[in-house]
């Protein structure tokens, strides 16, 4: 098999890249702005008010119409791989989206709360958590249901 000079240069460069590149596993890295289970446990449906929630978690990234519900969300990095060749040249990282939704009664008391967990997605868009349609559909279905034991 004969190679042209150009093909030899390309193959040599490719071989050198593959040999020098480094594949680094990305471990599960946690989340940014995560609401802890301890904080969630402090919110008592039927007792806690909108003021209690705001004093605990501050302003929510998603506010329902007339503040009938709040959604706090965060993304969790599940893991993946990085290929580094002098600098990261390729990454495949799985992330999942998590929503804490709180619905309020007309008097401002928490009527119900629920966690929604999205599936892990590979290299999702940066706004996949705020615009995560499966979770939004689940949220709308849940909001339409009457509160039962705060859920």
């Amino acid at each position, binding site marked *: 098999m004969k190679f042209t000079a150009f093909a030899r240069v390309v193959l040599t460069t490719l071989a050198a890249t593959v040999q020098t590149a480094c594949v680094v596993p990305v471990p599960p890295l946690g989340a940014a702005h995560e609401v802890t289970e301890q904080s969630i446990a402090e919110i008592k449906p039927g007792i806690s008010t909108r003021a209690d929630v705001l004093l605990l978690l501050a302003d929510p990234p998603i506010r329902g119409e007339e503040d009938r519900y709040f959604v706090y969300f965060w993304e969790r990095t599940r893991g993946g791989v*990085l290929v580094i060749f002098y600098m990261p040249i390729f990454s495949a990282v799985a992330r999942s989206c998590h929503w804490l939704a709180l619905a309020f009664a007309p008097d401002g008391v928490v009527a119900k709360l629920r966690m929604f967990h999205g599936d892990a997605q590979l290299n999702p868009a940066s706004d996949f958590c705020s615009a995560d349609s499966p979770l939004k559909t689940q949220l709308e279905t849940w909001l339409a249901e009457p509160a039962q034991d705060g859920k």
Partner: protein
Amino acid sequence: MFVWERNRRASRRHAESAERRAVLLFAGVLLCGVLSSCATTVERVADVDELKLLAFLQAGSVARGEVEGRLGCPMTAYEDGRIVVYALQKNEGRFQAIPENDRRLGDVRFRLVLVYGPDGTMQRWSLVDRGSSR
């Protein structure tokens, strides 16, 4: 070229390659470390020293006018202004309110939440850290 010289060069290339791989691996591990340090939670600040920096916030005695005189207009309001939120940034050992039209607002770490009573005096408050490390 003598065989031993070729071997020596190959050996040196191999050593350099191993060294480069080690550096890249270290860089990767470092990158993972940096990324994992980004893991943060939303927590109410309980540190007394930090809360002392907002000592003027005396529940039951400080009026809305005094708060707005010090911090300006709040970032967001709830329940017709009964509950307000300020974005605060810690700068040189002091908390500073970030104006509502500031582009940095989303990245600001602290939120000050104030609840006013019907007479306009502040009744409850809390400082929330959105970038608390575990």
